[in-house]
């Protein structure tokens, strides 16, 4: 490690030793990846979405592969906040890394409940997944209506004891509207992109490839869309942006950083290459070395 290179960032008031984390849902709570990645080497670990009670998730098949990506419809299966606090948090707290807890819910009350339960816990940041369908509003996702985004952000901010990062859905006409709504609601940061809604037909069975019919597209195939949206969002708000979507390596991560992201997350590609997140950290450092960059901050939003 070259001490002259500074990879650390201040993100929404949290010091991250480097700008790299894992994308929610692709890394569990890190337990299964421990053998492949030194968690101490990551700026943060972002956990799988957790709700107020256990969720069963969707029937199988929950995924299918698509060209350069995949569709998933896991249905946010999770063991609920009680188990998460008892089992997953103590595991992560052993490590010298920041913990970002991803929160999901079906109603505003459910989000608030999870955030309240986390108030006394040693975690760095809350990431709020607003791509979940809002059952009280006829199933439309919270993240698809700027008024709802602002409202839910405010309700969460009112009870949160840690900085709040709103995770935006890309399934909208104008991402800047949603970014501004989150900022107006008091968000400390935003993250994007979540998955793009897609569909695959199994022509032999003349049916849907996924039991859920639709699923979220992720992986390298979505990267150009993600970089564009991160660029737009970063220029629309003053709060910091965590960028993700299809990152495979340091070059991909640097695109997001130069587009305006202060942090990046590695997701789907870890299914192909389990140590991808750690390799991105190394690759960014190597890039800085080769290009005489002393501080990562020189690169953030530099385009």
């Amino acid at each position, binding site marked *: 490690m070259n001490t002259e290179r500074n990879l650390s960032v201040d993100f929404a008031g949290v010091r991250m030793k480097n700008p790299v984390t894992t994308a929610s849902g692709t890394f569990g709570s890190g337990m299964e990846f421990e053998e492949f990645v030194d968690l101490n080497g990551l700026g943060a670990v972002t956990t799988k979405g957790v709700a107020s009670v256990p*969720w*069963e998730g969707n029937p199988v098949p929950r995924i299918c592969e698509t060209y350069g990506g995949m569709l998933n419809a896991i249905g946010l299966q999770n063991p609920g906040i009680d188990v998460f606090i008892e089992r997953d948090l103590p595991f992560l707290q052993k490590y010298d890394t920041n913990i970002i807890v991803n929160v999901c819910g079906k109603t505003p009350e459910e989000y608030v409940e999870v955030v309240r339960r986390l108030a006394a816990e040693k975690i760095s940041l809350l990431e709020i997944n607003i791509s979940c369908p809002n059952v009280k509003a006829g199933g439309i996702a919270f993240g698809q209506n700027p008024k709802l985004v602002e409202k839910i952000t405010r309700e969460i901010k009112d009870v949160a004891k840690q900085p709040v990062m709103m995770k935006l859905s890309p399934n909208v006409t104008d991402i800047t509207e949603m970014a501004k709504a989150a900022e107006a609601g008091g968000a400390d940061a935003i993250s994007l992109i979540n998955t793009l809604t897609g569909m695959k037909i199994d022509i032999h069975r003349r049916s849907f490839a996924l039991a859920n019919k639709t699923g979220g597209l992720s992986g390298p195939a979505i990267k150009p869309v993600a970089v564009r949206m991160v660029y737009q969002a970063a220029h629309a708000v003053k709060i910091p942006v965590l960028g993700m979507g299809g990152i495979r390596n340091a070059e991909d991560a640097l695109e997001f950083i130069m587009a305006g992201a202060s942090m990046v997350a590695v997701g789907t590609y870890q299914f192909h290459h389990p140590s991808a997140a750690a390799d991105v950290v190394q690759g960014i450092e190597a890039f800085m070395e080769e290009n005489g960059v002393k501080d990562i901050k020189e690169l953030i939003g530099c385009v």
Partner: protein
Amino acid sequence: MAKRKVLAQVASQERLSGEIYSMWISFSEEDNIAEEAQAGQFLSLYCREGSRLLPRPISICEIDREKGRLRLVYRVAGEGTREFSTLQEGDTIEVLGPLGNGFTKKEGKSILIGGGIGIPPMLELAKALFKAGGKKEDIQVVLGYRDNDLFLKEEFAPYAEVFVSTEDGSVGTKGNVIDAVNEHQISGGEVYACGPLPMLRGVKAYAKEHHIPAQISMEERMACGIGACLVCVCMSKETDAHSHVKNKRVCKDGPVFDAEEVEL
């Protein structure tokens, strides 16, 4: 030693018949996955073609711990397995393993049931039971095929009594594996099975009726292959200790389950 992602070398590639291939892959001394591998476990195989992101799970068909080699027998089912079938001796392939739990070997008379592309993992199991001191007549293997393409059948002969069923009736019992079990009045103290879901349902019903414990190997789509993503779940009878809901991860809690703990 834990599971690892390593670069293996293709030691041989052979077409057994039609779309069925047999590939031996070898490991370096430092990364000898074969050393820890057990019957019923599987590997994740990665494609070279970058557009195919997800690993392909393939069962371990035979283990050669000394030479540090594993045998995989697979059917070309799509683009990924087609890519694997083009690999030649000396080529390399990225694999992650060994994955999953594998079968728990029990003493005494056993019934090993394999259907279609569920047959390969039963070969290593038959071998392992035999090597652990099992008598050949106590290791009863029932293989279900579609027709007279009886891939791998001969290879069971040194270790086991082999019975065959074919859907078209061209060889052995006409019908399915349970028809063959009934026809030959095969009995035993433990059932091990791998095959398509309808077959596993039949095996479960048979084992229940005869009060025999059954270990069944399940199949499901996978993404991470290591238990993190919750893609590959099957339904469980009771609330699972890890997930806290009624489902289990095939890649990590399985692929082998006690037939009574899962809903088919």
